[in-house]
């Protein structure tokens, strides 16, 4: 098990390194630079700014300096647009917001998506199944930029809830619901698929033949294996949720990381893009690692392979 863990960690470090390297060179190939504004800067000012931030060096030297800063000093660089702020400060301020939103959104997704998928599997090809799958399909097809404003306009009028903004703790409800319902739709379909596959297995038939009740068969015998596809989806989905969603954050004016992701790219805020990609990469690697461990715990065959 430890060997597997170490191997996965090693792969994760490599993935993050490659991700950062590709991002580093790609963003520098984009047209424009961080200092472009409404007014054209005189050449001497542009040169001075480039020199101050080391952007006048060749891309390879900048790349070397970037890693040197991180590895030797833990310095992820400054924001080139919000001068005076460090990348780490920006991430540290916005990440808790996205984390809280992601956790609540994911809880909503799990609490709605998995029971809905199980119910759907139980009533396969009957009207509850059709209704749930229709709703799930709608949840997948209708984009967040439609769901968000509709929730804001309707539910946002309820006492305590908020049309948008981040000035009271309950402001989290509607954006989390928007994110949660979209993910619940995916989870419902995945859970249904997983459960249907398991429910046709011979050991389930055996359990039924032995007189196990429907609920017991469902929760004790089938659920563990039936959840495997949903669990595989949860890892990357959770990482994506807690690094923010630009659309939902824009619709509800949530000060999370998603806004930084898009704005840093359009503003060519090189160091901030790098920092955010690094953060996202680490979260994806960690989330996938946790998913692997959960899958091993749920699936005895994988556990046997892991131990071997």
């Amino acid at each position, binding site marked *: 098990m430890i060997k597997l863990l170490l191997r996965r960690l090693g792969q994760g470090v490599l993935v993050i390194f490659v991700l950062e390297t590709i991002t580093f060179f790609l963003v520098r190939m984009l047209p424009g630079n961080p200092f472009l504004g*409404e*007014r054209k*800067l005189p050449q001497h000012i542009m040169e001075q700014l480039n020199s101050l931030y080391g952007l006048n060096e060749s891309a390879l030297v900048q790349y070397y300096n970037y890693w040197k800063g991180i590895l030797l000093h833990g310095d992820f660089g400054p924001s080139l647009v919000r001068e005076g702020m460090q990348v780490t400060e920006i991430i540290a301020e916005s990440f808790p*917001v996205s984390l809280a939103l992601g956790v609540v959104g994911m809880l909503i997704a799990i609490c709605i998506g998995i029971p809905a998928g199980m119910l759907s599997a139980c009533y396969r090809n009957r009207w509850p199944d059709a209704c749930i799958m229709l709703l799930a399909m709608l949840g997948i097809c209708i984009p967040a930029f439609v769901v968000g404003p509709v929730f804001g306009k309707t539910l946002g009028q309820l006492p305590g809830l908020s049309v*948008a903004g981040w000035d009271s703790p309950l402001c989290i409800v509607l954006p989390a619901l928007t994110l949660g319902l979209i993910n619940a739709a995916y989870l419902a379909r995945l859970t249904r698929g997983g459960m249907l596959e398991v429910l046709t297995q011979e050991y389930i038939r055996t359990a039924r033949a032995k007189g196990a009740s429907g609920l017991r068969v469902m929760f004790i015998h089938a659920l563990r294996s039936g959840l495997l596809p949903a669990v595989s989806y949860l890892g990357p989905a959770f990482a994506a949720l807690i690094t923010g969603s630009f659309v939902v954050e824009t619709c509800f004016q949530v000060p999370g990381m998603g806004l930084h992701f898009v704005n840093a790219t359009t503003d060519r805020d090189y160091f901030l893009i790098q920092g955010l990609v690094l953060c996202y990469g680490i979260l994806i690697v960690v989330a996938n690692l946790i998913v692997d461990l959960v899958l091993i715990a749920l699936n005895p065959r994988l556990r046997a392979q892991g131990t071997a």
Partner: protein
Amino acid sequence: MRVLTGFLCILSGILLSSCGDGKSSAEKFAAEKILLIGNNSEPQSLDPHKATAVADGKIIATLLEGLVRPDPAQEAGVLPGAAERWEHNERADEWLFYLHKDAVWSDGTPVTAQDFEYAYRRILHPQFGGRYAEMLYPLQGAAAFNKGETTWEHVGVKAVDAHTLKLTLNGPTPHLPQLLLHFTWSPIPAHHVEANGGMFDRSSRWARPDNWVGNGAYVTEAHHLNNYLSVTPNPKYRRAHELKNKGIRFLPIVNGYTETRMYLGGKLHISNNVPPEMISYAAAKAPQDFCRDPYYCTIFYRLNTTKPPLDDVRVREALSLAIDRDALVHKVVRGAGTPTFCFTPPGANYRAEQPAAASLTQQEREQRARQLLAEAGYAGGQGFPTLELMTTSRDVQRIMAETIQAMWAETLGIHVEIRACEWTAYKAAQQGMEYDISSSSWSGDYLDPATFVELWRSGGGNNCTDWGNPAFDADTAAATATGDAATRCHHLQQAEQRMLQEHPIIPLYHSERTYLRSARHIRGRQPRLLDNFPLDAVEVVP
């Protein structure tokens, strides 16, 4: 640990929170006399030498007081700010400003003329790299100093004593007080900047909200990225007793749809912008609150005059005449503008002379456009190459481009391709002259026609059309050289007319600001062409 603490705070907040008391944020904050205002975008910096955005300027105006301040009672009026009075010589190229002797920074240190000199030296210093340093180029020797060609002693800024500042300008500048209203002319606390990394340290923390020292009506209270920045009255401010509110919250809401929904949901007292698509909705929902103010801004198309066939003035004029500006303004931007054939918006005692085309009917213009295109060798659009019309990815710009594309196809029989770029790529292409036709806008930095007309000087950094005309340059130079307001105005009008006759640009409309302002909670706010009404003169009432 900080991340974990923040996360736990938010989660515990949710658990502990109870349902609201039925009052909206606008009502609650109005009761506390705190103004909630939509401010378009997250500020880049509160350091007036690093900030460039209009949104930054609005916050800085509450935190720092320049030599003069805008008069809330009249458009283009100025009142004594940090300077209690001023005088100038007959040519208006030497000005003496006498500072209030009792003025202090928010940490109690006196505000001196040396602080102003320090500030102007910093923004102009080539080692600092001030992005808006050009705003101070009217100062004698400033441009040369900024380029590293001369020393500070040759720049026309001198602290005569602790409370007297002398400014020497390149030429007569009777409109200097208007220039001084821009945030780049604000003072900075030299002692505080020196204690936080010094003059050239761009990563200095002196202007961070948690470390702020200023001489304005307010000081920073809290800043949460992409959420809000709040300011609270500065007890050391000279006129602190006159302040009507207990604070201002600036909300950086980029998306106009979200902002309008937030306003209508009781989250703001003043919004920044109602997008054209929401104008009729917002006006119907809140007729008392909906505002439509003139704005010192022109929407126009730049033409790359180096690229054939746009190097032919007849083609450029034909493209201009074929656009039905009335239809564009009424159908695309839903009336949020005034159709125009001129570049400089009316204001500041200046009105550009309308070209002859303005007095024709649209049918006559279109006929003339077809005739001009035929004279240029493209009768009915035959043989006309496919040009590219570059816009930003903003909805209104894309729709406007599609409308104009259709107008040109219908009237002239020519086809243009639309290229919608994200903002930085768009600016890079425009400034690098890598375009055929580029949708553009220009808003005045200060209330004076020169901020518009001088854009088109030969080789000017923001010209971006490669058009130039020695006679135009001579006119603008003559305007700069004279101290007489009427003569100056005449030269600028003449220059603008020369430019418009050669059509390096296609003026479309002078835009208007559409926004929402709570008639119930807001008192004393007046429309301003530069949208710079002083917020310390706005009162929030319950």
